[in-house]
């Protein structure tokens, strides 16, 4: 099998599993919607400051992804199938495959949560393109880092609580810039003047991907 087809096999395996049980999507989405309801309910449906609106959106998205993303490796470790993966694929293939799986999961969650958030919190979204680009690029960086660290956490104890603590400091730059950029998409007259925010998110994602692929080998191999 070629390099790409093995990546495809990893993705397909997880996708099939997810189709049968819908565990990850359902639990993450439910958590996300609960978060959203808590925020929307406690604020009574209106926050006028765009900066605050974008901060709340990212808090919800961050914690929701902390629930769903680490599952890709934890489930393999729990079922004892990690060694099978080690036998069949190279580390790079597993890493890219699992990152893609997580990216699909996160995109699905965002596609539902972002519109819901805009409706429930009465947000005026002025620049749709800028907004979509921001969340896409930010979720790319978020996914790469989370996937790598979920492979780390899968081999440790107390995973559930450890994972967000490990991820947050590394993800802080993305978080800061994403909040800023989303706020501009909600309000500013011309967010494209701040296109350097998007460049920053892209650079981060690329750096994380290159570093992650290199480091994953050491996490994965026994």
């Amino acid at each position: 099998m070629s390099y790409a087809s093995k990546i495809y096999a990893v993705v397909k395996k997880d996708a099939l599993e997810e189709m049968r049980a819908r565990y990850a999507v359902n639990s993450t989405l439910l958590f996300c919607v609960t978060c959203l309801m808590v925020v929307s309910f406690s604020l009574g449906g209106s926050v006028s400051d765009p900066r605050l609106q974008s901060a709340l959106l990212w808090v919800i998205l961050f914690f929701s992804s902390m629930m769903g993303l680490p599952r890709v490796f934890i489930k393999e470790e729990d079922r004892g199938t990690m060694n099978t993966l080690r036998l069949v694929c190279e580390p790079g293939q597993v890493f890219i495959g699992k990152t893609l799986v997580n990216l699909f999961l996160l995109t699905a969650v965002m596609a539902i949560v972002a519109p819901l958030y805009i409706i429930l919190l009465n947000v005026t979204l002025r620049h749709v393109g800028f907004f979509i680009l921001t969340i896409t690029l930010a979720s790319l960086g978020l996914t790469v880092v989370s996937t790598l660290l979920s492979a780390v956490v899968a081999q440790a104890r107390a995973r559930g609580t450890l994972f967000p603590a490990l991820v947050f400091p590394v993800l802080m730059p993305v978080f800061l810039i994403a909040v800023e950029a989303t706020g501009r998409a909600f309000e500013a007259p011309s967010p494209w003047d701040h296109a350097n925010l998007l460049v920053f998110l892209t650079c981060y994602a690329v750096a994380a991907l290159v570093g992650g692929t290199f480091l994953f080998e050491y996490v994965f191999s026994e």
Partner: protein
Amino acid sequence: MPVLIGTALFLWMAGVMYGAFVYAPPAEGLGETSRLIFLHVPVAWTSVMAFITSFVYSILVLRRNRHEDDIRAEVAARMGLWYCVLATITGAFWAKATWNTYWNWDPREISIVVLLLVYMSYFGLRSAVTDPDKKIRLAAVYAILAAIIMPFLVFVVPRMYMSLHPDTLINNSGKSQLADVRMKQVFFFSLAGFTLLYFWLFNLSVRIERLVRRKEGWNV
């Protein structure tokens, strides 16, 4: 020989104290609080130096898989954590004196907090893994990942947000912020003193850590 080095270092640091409180004049505008620069900057500098040491030894752990390298990586991280706490506290007091608030999420404050969180998570991860070989590998991976991300926080984010923090030692204009000659002398004297103190403490802590691990039954 160790006694001699210890004594020399003690005298050096005593000299730093004298210089900071008596010899150097207070800076214009800042008054007596400016003397904090002789403590705050060297301590922050040391915490970054410890972070880099830990990063380098983490790479060596992955390349050579030796516990000896892990001892150095861990000790550097532990010292870096304490220096980082000191830098945060002195920084907060200074901010209260000059900006009239202990904390306002200035970009520099963000980056020091992230450094603090990285160190704490690093030890959280270490204590959550039981198998020694796995522990050193995973901890090294985390330290390296954090170091890859650090430049974004230290160099990029402060350029995107307005910062009240004075320019750092290594700045764009290449000029030092210290106007007075005596202040400059004491400052570099203190920076060198803290750097030497770091190496001295590092050496001691590595030896202690090695003994502790032997007692715990590690093969080092």
